[in-house]
């Protein structure tokens, strides 16, 4: 059963083409055009209703989007996010009480710099998308990935959840009623009629076009970005890094433009693939937030995934049948081989399995629905240092006795060739794997508790490169460490990451030696702190 080239001669029939009746299962009148799942055939009209209904049901079931909130739609141009955009338009345009009520904005991130596209190709893609966005009359922001190099380091801090959030006060239903009331009052004043608001918004977005497209990028920035990605050896790590940087950019835009929610267009199939590949990447601890409906890890900005119930097939058909514009933009892994990266391999595995066993994706999806975080996500007690620097999920690399992580480290130590250590003292060379852990202040039974301060101090003056790697690693979760490990030049990382890492290391060190610190004026304490500079 688990062989590579197995033959099921005669035992397993190839999936028989379903002999469905030619009538739609829902209305039983019209001819069918599409099969969903394992044998439900729909006609055009019923499919459209089904599709639209699913979106609103998803938003209604998880009542996280309150009326009047500003929501940022992350559109990549691909089919799922374009479909999401059209659903939002559809939902906002209906009359009567059932319509969606939030204020949307659009963000598109131009990743051409990382995937090696030329400026003309990028401009063309951006122009195509801009025409789509303009037709929607919403604010839109076009951000180039190069801007990640000039982000402030505050983007890595988890914001506190907005204190004026209605959750603390009104319940969802009450908030909706309140909203309807205020709208009724507003409608009595012609100045604030909906049409005026719309035209006001669209005139704003016209102005914002200059702002929306943000500052033009310089070739040096593109080169710096390319250098960053060229320093990553494997495609897996590149994709991971790209994803992280993209999240940071979206988060930054959401924060500066006062959006409280971000909608991502991950479809069911994509999320199933993401679930499996995240496990392979070492992100098992944050599966619930990575693939669930809402992702509260950033605190003040919540990421929601309303498309998580749609399979890629449904989305592709809907886009085709109802002419939803979408732009295909080749990415890092276009035309890559099946085994080029973990993500790609998982995708081909799941898709192939899906053809023969059509319930694969939905099974994985249902499993992911059952995952919940064990502890409440907004832990005000958790200090900042307990979150991963890059992906802002809880650090899972606390070195406990007999944990799987400790076993991994020991294997790593044992399998490394132990030549003469670097210029540092034998004390540091003896534990290449554990400095990250011991300097994280665990004071562990590795027996180097006393010399912690000296150890890092000496390690720092030995070589200038060593501390960088050590410093970053102690601040990252397991899978981000693996990504960083694949990088050859850590200084190619954007400045905000490096400076935030520096800041956290300083505060960690201060904590470690806080017992040893005498008075602020004492000179003896200072050399220890300065030793890290």
């Amino acid at each position, binding site marked *: 059963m688990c062989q590579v080239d197995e033959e099921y001669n005669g035992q397993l029939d190839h999936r028989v*083409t379903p002999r469905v009746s030619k009538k739609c299962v829902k209305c039983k009148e019209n001819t069918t055009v599409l099969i969903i799942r394992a044998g439900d055939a729909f006609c055009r009209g019923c499919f459209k209703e089904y599709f639209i209904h699913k979106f609103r049901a998803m938003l209604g079931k998880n009542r996280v989007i309150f009326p009047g909130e500003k929501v940022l739609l992350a559109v990549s141009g691909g089919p799922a996010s374009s479909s999401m955009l059209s659903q939002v338009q559809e939902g906002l345009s209906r009359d009567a009480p059932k319509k969606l009520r939030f204020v949307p904005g659009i963000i598109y991130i131009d990743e051409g710099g990382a995937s090696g596209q030329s400026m003309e190709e990028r401009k063309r893609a951006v122009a195509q998308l801009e025409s789509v966005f303009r037709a929607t009359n919403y604010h839109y922001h076009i951000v180039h990935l190069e801007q990640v190099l000039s982000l402030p380091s505050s983007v890595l801090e988890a914001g506190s959840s907005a204190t004026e959030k209605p959750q603390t006060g009104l319940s969802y239903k009450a908030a909706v009623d309140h909203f309807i009331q205020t709208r009724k009052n507003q409608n009595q004043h012609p100045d604030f009629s909906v049409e005026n608001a719309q035209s006001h918004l669209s005139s704003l977005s016209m102005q914002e076009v200059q702002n929306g497209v943000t500052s033009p990028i310089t070739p040096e920035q593109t080169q710096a970005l390319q250098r960053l990605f060229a320093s990553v050896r494997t495609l897996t790590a590149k994709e991971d890094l790209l994803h992280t940087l993209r999240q940071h950019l979206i988060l930054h835009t959401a924060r500066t433009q006062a959006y409280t929610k971000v909608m991502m267009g991950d479809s069911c199939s994509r999320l199933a693939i993401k679930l499996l590949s995240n496990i392979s990447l070492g992100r098992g601890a944050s599966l619930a937030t990575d693939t669930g409906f809402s992702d509260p890890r950033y605190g003040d900005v919540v990421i929601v995934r309303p498309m998580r119930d749609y399979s890629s097939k449904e989305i592709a058909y809907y886009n085709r049948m109802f002419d939803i514009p979408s732009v295909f933009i080749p990415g890092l*892994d276009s035309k890559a081989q099946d085994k080029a990266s973990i993500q790609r391999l998982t995708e081909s595995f799941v898709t192939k399995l899906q053809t023969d066993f059509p319930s694969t994706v939905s099974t994985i999806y249902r499993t992911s629905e059952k995952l919940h975080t064990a502890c409440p996500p907004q832990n005000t007690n958790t200090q900042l240092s307990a979150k991963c620097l890059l992906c802002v999920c809880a650090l899972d690399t606390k070195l406990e006795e007999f944990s799987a992580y400790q076993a991994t480290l020991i294997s790593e130590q044992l399998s490394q060739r132990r030549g003469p250590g670097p210029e540092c003292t034998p004390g540091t060379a003896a534990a290449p794997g554990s400095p990250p852990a011991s300097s994280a202040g665990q004071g562990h039974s590795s027996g180097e508790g006393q010399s912690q301060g000296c150890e890092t101090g000496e390690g720092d003056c030995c070589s200038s490169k060593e501390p960088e790697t050590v410093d970053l690693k102690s601040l990252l979760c397991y899978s981000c460490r693996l990504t960083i490990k694949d990088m050859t030049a850590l200084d190619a990382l954007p400045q905000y990451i490096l400076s935030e890492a520096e800041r956290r290391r300083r505060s960690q060190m201060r904590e470690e030696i806080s017992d040893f610190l005498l008075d602020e004026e004492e000179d003896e304490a200072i050399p220890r702190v300065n030793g890290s500079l």
Partner: protein
Amino acid sequence: MAAPIAIHLEFGGGAELLFGSVKEHHVTLPNQSAPWDMKQLLVWIRGNMLKERPELFVQGDTVRPGILVLINDADWELMGELEYELQDKDNVVFISTLHGG
């Protein structure tokens, strides 16, 4: 069929990358005694139109998993998949749902 069949092909979702980034193609399938079916069409596309990387489009007898096929705007599963016999002026659409085209 005796007469050659004119087919309108469309590629989307990234599949067009394999066909010179051209999304729409009008092709005329040459004469042959037996009627054209989808299986033969795929072989014909692979031989005459695919510029590169055939394994990203065709796998064995059928299309690669992840590529949807629409015949006259209807799911090809409803038409018999590979056994469907092509008629003149049919519209066949291939949409890739995979990440990398």
